Each structure stands twice: as structure tokens, then as C-alpha cells.
């Protein structure tokens, strides 16, 4: 569609990211001008504006961008790894595991500090990851990707049943917060959360980028990849664990935001092809921009009320994706 060199495309996506970032910081209950934002970042001007920008808008924009990047890159990884266009970051049960953790924390009245629910969600996600892994590994030593996919689907179904059971007995308050959490929101953004996310995202991103070429080969076929020099079992395990941990970290701070991880990699693929060396970083950049934009819309259209982020990502993303799919059907 747009014929640019890969480096130029990435640069374009970086520019898009910066523009969206500025927009996300400017928009909100109080609309700010670019000058005001810059002043506030430097600590000048109106103290209220400084507090809004430094304490609320910036951490929220950064966290939203990181979550978007994390979901998009792990979605792209799972699609390549499972050789399945329908795979998303949640396909292996990480999100429902996280939801069980969060709902349990809320239900047992553990939501005392801003950290307990995310921590419980993260534990739930990691437990889910191990359960799925155990089920799949029990079926055979080679960790077949189809078995992995099936294990993820049944584990998700089980965790969802657990959530529904817990919600049946939850009080209204716990119910509301659990639902809000399951739809996803970056309203609770803070610098410590950004930091916690970075601890997982930065090494995760590097590992996944190093796996880009082996993942390209594995998309053609696992045997082919082996014949071209890939250590298939190691690549599979590393990609699976890394993408799951990155997803778990994102879900733990922002809930299970849907759609980003499924569709952003497809958008990049439709525009620029499926080479993972480009697809992975490009998905991360576009996912970050897309989620910041969706969050800006979620905060502003019904202000002062805030829409659930997952609703906005679907409302904005689905029509766009349908349009793109109609224009380039042969490419998918």
C-alpha cells in the first residue's frame, strides 16, 4: 500500500506515536494547549496544571502506550507461534487467569492498597500460564502448538466459570469493580505501575525481537524451521513464556483490554507484510498509539463519565478493520 523502506515505516510509526502521545496528554476534562503541556512538564506555570500533567495525564498516557505495545507485540507473537490468525494475547488463558486473581482479591476484601489487585491478577495470569503449559506438556514431550491452543481454550473456559461462580456470591461493590476491571481501564495509572510494567516489557521486547527470525521460519512450518537451523522447541518455549509474561504484566495493571492484541498485528500485516522482524516492533508502536487514542476518546466523549476502554477499542477498531479487510481481502 505505502511503499517505504522498513526503517522509514518505523520512523513514521514513531512520529505517529509522538503525535498521539501529545494528544493524549492534552485531552481530558481540562483541555490543554501544547505550550501549557510543555510548561507543566518543565514545572512552570499554573500549579494545578502541573499537577494534572505530571501526576495524572503523563503517567496515564505512558502506561496506556506501554499496555498497547505489550498487547500488540504479544498478539503478534502468539499469531506467529500458533500459526493461527485468530490468536490474541488472551488465547492461552492469561487474561482469564488474571481475572480470577483480581476477582478473588476483590471478593476476599483484599483490595486495600492500590497494589493488591494488580499483584493478585499477575499471580493469576502466571498460574494460568503454568496450568496451560502443564496440560499441553502432559499430552506429549514436544509441546505441540495445536495441543497448546486447545489447552489454552479449555483453561480459559474453566477460569471463566470460576469467575462467574465468584461473581454470583459477590456483593454489588465487588461485582462492579470486577466487571470494570475485566473490561479494562488505565484509569488507575501511576508512575510506580509504569515502572512495574517496564520491568517486564523492556526485556520481553528484546527477547521477542531476537526471536523474530526464528518465528518467521516457524510460520512456514516447524520442520522447515528446524531444517533451516532453528532450535524449534527452545524458540517455542521462550516465545510462549515471554509473550505470556508481557501480557500478564499488562493485564495486571490495566485489566483485560480486548481487540488491540488481535487486530493491530493484522493491520500491520495488511499494510506491510508479515516479516516478524518488522511486524513485532511495528505492532508495538502502532498498538501504543492506538490504545492512547482509544483512551483519549474513552475519557472525553462522555466526560465527566469514562467509557470502558475495551468498548472504545472495539468501537473504533472494528469498523476500521472491516474497511481494511474489504479493501485488501486477498492479503489475509
Amino acid at each position: 500500500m505505502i511503499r517505504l523502506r522498513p526503517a522509514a515505516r518505523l520512523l513514521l510509526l514513531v512520529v505517529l506515536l509522538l503525535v498521539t502521545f501529545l494528544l493524549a496528554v492534552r485531552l481530558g476534562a481540562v483541555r490543554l494547549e501544547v505550550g501549557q503541556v510543555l510548561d507543566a512538564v518543565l514545572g512552570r506555570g499554573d500549579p494545578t496544571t502541573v499537577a494534572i500533567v505530571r501526576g495524572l495525564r503523563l503517567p496515564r498516557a505512558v502506561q496506556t502506550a506501554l499496555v498497547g505495545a505489550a498487547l500488540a507485540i504479544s498478539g503478534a507473537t502468539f499469531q506467529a507461534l500458533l500459526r493461527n490468525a485468530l490468536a490474541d494475547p488472551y488465547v492461552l488463558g492469561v487474561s482469564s487467569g488474571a481475572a480470577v486473581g483480581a476477582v478473588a482479591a476483590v471478593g476476599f476484601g483484599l483490595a486495600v492498597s492500590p497494589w493488591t489487585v494488580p499483584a493478585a491478577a499477575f499471580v493469576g495470569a502466571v498460574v494460568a500460564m503454568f496450568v496451560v503449559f502443564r496440560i499441553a506438556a502432559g499430552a506429549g514431550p514436544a509441546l505441540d502448538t495445536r495441543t497448546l491452543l486447545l489447552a489454552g481454550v479449555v483453561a480459559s473456559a474453566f477460569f471463566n466459570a470460576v469467575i462467574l461462580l465468584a461473581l454470583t456470591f459477590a456483593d454489588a461493590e465487588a461485582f462492579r469493580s470486577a466487571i470494570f476491571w475485566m473490561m479494562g481501564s488505565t484509569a488507575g495509572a501511576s508512575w510506580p505501575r509504569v515502572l512495574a510494567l517496564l520491568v517486564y516489557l523492556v526485556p520481553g521486547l528484546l527477547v521477542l525481537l531476537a526471536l523474530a527470525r526464528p518465528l518467521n521460519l516457524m510460520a512456514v512450518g516447524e520442520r522447515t524451521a528446524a531444517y533451516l537451523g532453528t532450535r524449534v522447541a527452545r524458540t517455542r518455549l521462550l516465545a510462549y513464556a515471554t509473550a505470556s509474561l508481557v501480557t500478564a504484566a499488562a493485564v495486571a495493571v490495566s485489566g483485560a483490554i480486548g481487540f488491540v492484541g488481535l487486530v493491530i498485528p493484522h493491520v500491520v500485516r495488511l499494510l506491510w507484510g508479515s516479516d516478524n522482524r518488522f511486524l513485532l516492533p511495528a505492532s508495538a508502536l502502532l498498538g501504543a498509539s492506538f490504545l492512547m487514542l482509544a483512551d483519549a476518546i474513552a475519557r472525553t466523549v462522555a466526560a465527566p463519565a469514562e467509557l470502558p476502554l475495551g468498548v472504545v477499542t472495539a468501537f473504533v477498531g472494528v469498523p476500521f478493520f472491516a474497511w481494511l479487510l474489504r479493501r485488501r481481502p486477498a492479503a489475509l
Partner: protein
Amino acid sequence: MGWRAANLVFRYPGAATNALDGVTLDVPPGLCTALIGPNGAGKSTLLHTLLGTLTPRAGEVWLESRPLAEWTRVAMARRVGVVPQGEDAPFPMAVRELVAMGRYPHLGAWRREGDRDRRAIAEAMRLADVEELAERSLATLSGGERQRARLARALAQEPAALALDEPTVALDIQHEMTIFELLRTLSREGRTVLLVTHHLNLAARYADRLVLMHRGRVAAAGTPAEVLVRERVEAVYGWPVAIVPHPGPGPDAGAPQVVALSAAGRL
């Protein structure tokens, strides 16, 4: 660059019988060897065992006189190019992208293509005659074109040996012959070629050596004239045949050709 295998035994999980039941064979360097035999004889299983993607229960494989266990996948990929069966990329990909994958064993995860890699890719695409298809998406190619693209990928590895699993299955005469002619050229240039094929007559013309598999064992190995003996072929395939010389003209005149008779030929 040749293989040797001794007493290979392999059984698929849950199977009642051994897919390989004591296979000993020699794939000499610089020649073209064809594995032939009926469906389920163990040809593909043997190929995968020789290439290390299946691990035998017993027996040993040597590649270039070193036990297969001592080879890393990367080291093997630098020496052996493989054209496997049944690839199906779930996402669109251009032919050149596929061929460039052959450089992975030389480049690893990070290094970019250099002049030498680009030359190897261009040369491989020239040999396999897919230069014109470079920018085409794999999904738009015919079966023959796709198979040539895969062959180009294996050639881009700059291997000393090529292994192919039924490279011409479902191809028409022209595409099939193109691939066999190319394999002959590659073999004449000194590469070892090992292929699995159902095509007895092409194997008899283009291979220096045939290995006839039957129920997980080697029924016969040697030159085409030594292996394609009427009684043996009839016993292995369970069908009456006649063995006739290739009528020519051409370099294959006189090569033994298997003609399957009608069932009444049993008489």
C-alpha cells in the same frame, strides 16, 4: 557429504509395528540417491531420521562420518538443504522472502544480509528459475512454482547436500521434469542429492542409486538396473509389472522403466 545409517529402528507412538525395522544404508557423497517404495514403506520416516527431526529407538546415523547427535541444527543447515513436504504459511509472504530464509543458518538472529547473502539468494533463484516470481505472493503461485521456490530456499543455504521429500508430487510433466533435470545438474556439480519419490521411472533415470524400502526394511539397494528387477518390484508393490528399457532418444535411453500391467497380467 554423505549419510550412513546402521540398524535404525523407529516406531511412532501408539503404532503396533516399527516404521523402520533395522534399516542399514549408505548415501554416498556426490551422487543422487532415491528412496523408493510403496505407501507406508518408511521412506519419509527414514528421511526424517537421517535429518534428525525423528529420533530412532535404536541404531545410529552418521553425517559426514560424524554421529548425528554431534550436529547442531545450525551446523547441519549450513551443509544440508531440505525441501520438506506439506508447508503452508498461514500469512502472506513473497517468494524472495521465502528464499532469503535459506540464509538464516549463516546469519543467525540479528545479522543483516550482506553481499555474499544477496549473491547466494540471486544464484539460488536463478538456478531454480524463480527470478521472475521474486515479488509474487506464495499464495498466488502454482504448485510447480511453489516447489521451485522451496528448492531455491534450500539452494540459498549453499548446501553440500540436498534432501527432498517427494518434490514433484502433484506436478505436471513439464514442472516435474524441470525439477528432475535441475537435480541432475546439481548432482553433476558435486552435490549429494537424496530424495524420496514415488516416481520409479524418473528415479531410475535420474538417480545414481536406488534404495527400495518395504515394510520398514531395505528390500534392495544399488544401481537402478540392480534394484528394479521384475520379481522384486512385483513382490514389494504387490502388482504385476514389466521392466522395459527407456526408448530414448536422450541420455536416459536404456534405463530400466517399470510398466504396471493390468490385473490380468498376473496370469
